[in-house]
């Protein structure tokens, strides 16, 4: 499911990242990689705050829709 619809405060695994190349590079450098573990902390009007590698990252809605996670 997309990050946007993921349940809050549950550790999930990233299975797919479908954003453009440049953004993908940036996300990778921040540790947002396939198979990485991620927790959704807050959803505010579609924008999300995630916890990954113990860092809080804010991500906007359209990007969050393109990151897929599974339990």
């Amino acid at each position, binding site marked *: 499911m997309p990050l946007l619809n993921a349940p809050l405060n549950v550790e999930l695994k990233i299975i797919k990242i479908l954003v453009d190349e440049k*953004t993908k*590079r*940036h996300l990778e450098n921040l540790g947002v990689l396939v198979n990485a573990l991620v927790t959704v902390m*807050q959803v505010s009007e579609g924008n999300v705050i995630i916890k990954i590698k113990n860092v809080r990252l*804010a991500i906007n*809605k359209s990007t969050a829709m393109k990151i897929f996670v599974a339990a």
Partner: protein
Amino acid sequence: MIKICLAGNPNCGKTTLFNSLTGSTAHVGNWPGVTVEKREGSYRKFDEKIDIVDLPGIYSMSPYTPEEVVSRNYILDEKPNCVINIVDATNLERNLYLTTQLLEIDVPVVVALNMMDILKKNNETIDIKALSEAFKVPVVEISALKDEGLDDLMKVAYGEAKKVRKGTTILEKTTVGSLVREAYNELKTSVSSPLFHAVKLVENDELECKDHPELAKRISDMKSKLPEDDFEGDYEAIIANERYEYIGKNFKHTFVKFNEGLTKSDKIDKVLTHKIWSIPIFLLIMFVVFHFTFSEDFLGLNKIFGLEITSKGWFNFFTGMGYDGAIEEEGEAILSGIPSLGVFLQSWMGFLTGSIIDLFNSFLPEGAWYTSLICDGILTGIDSIFSFIPQVLLLYLFVSILEDSGYMARVAFIMDRAFRKFGLSGKAFIPLLMGFGCSVPAMLATKTLEDEKERDVTIRITPFFSCGAKAPIWTLLAAVVAGRFLGDVFVFSIYILGIAIAIIAAIIMKVFSKNYDVPPFIMELPQYHAPQFKNLMVHLWEKFKHFIYKASTIIMAAIIVIWFLSNFSWDFWNGMVDDIESSILASVGRVVRYIFYPLGFGSGADGWKYTAATFTGLIAKEDVVGTMAQLGLVEGTINLSNAAIYSFAAYNLFTLPCFAAVSTAKSESSKKGFLVTLAWWLALSYIVALIIYWLGTLLEAVLWLGSIVIVVIVLLVILLGFYVSKKKRAQIA
């Protein structure tokens, strides 16, 4: 000379360390992207002078935004003698990622584990021996904030700087190891830092592949023989993954269990980034800030309890209100309420500077030209600006507190949704918010935006976020309108108007630019922390120093020129004129003022004075009130209508900012963008002021008709917004 640079993730304490090492006072804040340019200073505790270079924070050696390019290019091209890699010890996993990349460059590296004080407070330790052995570089524990371990760090770095180091990589034993080796063998004789470039080549870096096309082909053939994996041949992802895997595998035991579960920061965020309450809370915070700074009736106490004081008793002495020269006669009501902190400070400052002028007046001979120059020119001009300084500094203090606590990054986040509709990302909000302090650093901060178009648009609307130098204009006008309605509401409304017009301007620019996608918003949210007192004071001191410097140079020069122009006529060899109306400035102003006729403040006997003030504002915005004071326009003598006051305020808010800001805009925007920007500022300020004056006049004359017209205009703007967002949605679908 030895050059040592500081590299590390954003917000890991590089600038704090830089300040401690060099005794500088560079700006520190709690959000990613405070430093946008490299900065140099020197460390003098050794016999040899050492140059310290502070770089913008980077997450990796593959830059994403222009300010990250600055860092990468510096490390690769300028060849420092040593790189101090600052690592946030409370978040090793993400910070060491950059370390693994820095190690691949042929440069001595020292890892500085920062924020050790926080670790010690929580009784945590890090196995620095293991780290040092694994990376084969020295590791030093420091706390930049508490000044701990800095001497050790510099001793180690100084020693390393004399050595030569070959790059090493942690990718050696991974699936891509053979590819990197192959590329390395080919490159090692032809380029510097061959290992770094070899890895880039394996990552399929565009530039690198173009430089070595044959090698790139051989590598890609080798890649096709490797087994498939989860990343579908995306080698940048594979390498990024290998780095994180390596860090996880080798240093898992050294990770500190910080920030796990719901931290205090997370709980605060549940409220401050709430989907409904976040924006009202932000507006409330801003209003409280303005109320504390500009209100003449603190918390509405006077309105509720009806305070009226008619003598200069201790109570007045305490609030400062009766002493700023406004009250002449005993028995007149002095105090209409308890003033806010800002107004209180302003009153006393006005009293102080007023007394100084009186003092000079008392011993300088009456009627001499130099008395006029000193008292009516320089002192009056400086006084008019100085008395507003307490309020400006107070406003700046509040913004610094918000910056330092970490709230800025959250505001960017909650604003992103709204901003996206206007063609900007939430990231643009940080430069804009900095615009409340000064447009120059705000425009420099647009370097953190990855898209050129977004930078242009942001620069164009930055001056609409009223800067500290414009604040004296509003405060002066607030004092004028205070008798008609509330001063703090007036000032707040100016700020809100600025934001509203900025939004509308962004929408208009969006309509006229085709196929433009707002870049995604991805931002690290730092932990909240209590603002550092020392840090706040440094910010204030810097601001104050900057102001004093400006006041004593460019503002002073403008004031002297204005004094000359307003006290002499064209035949100036005949001495000073008695009547200001026959001065050079008056005769020029009377011609030029026709430009501002339609805006309301150009007409009337004083019209040329407002015109002159507006023009001196181009030199520095403080000069607007400075000039007004010299020409005799102060609280009691400004007799514009409400509409004209608003129009005057709006024109000065939206027109060309000061020269410093204009030249910054030139250096930061795209070539084509800059000319558009100039035309844009001139046209927009005129149109907005015109609309305000005409609507305001209409409102004052015929209330119902004016109301209808305003409602219609607001509706049109909303419709425009809807139209844009609908078009956008249609494009996506």
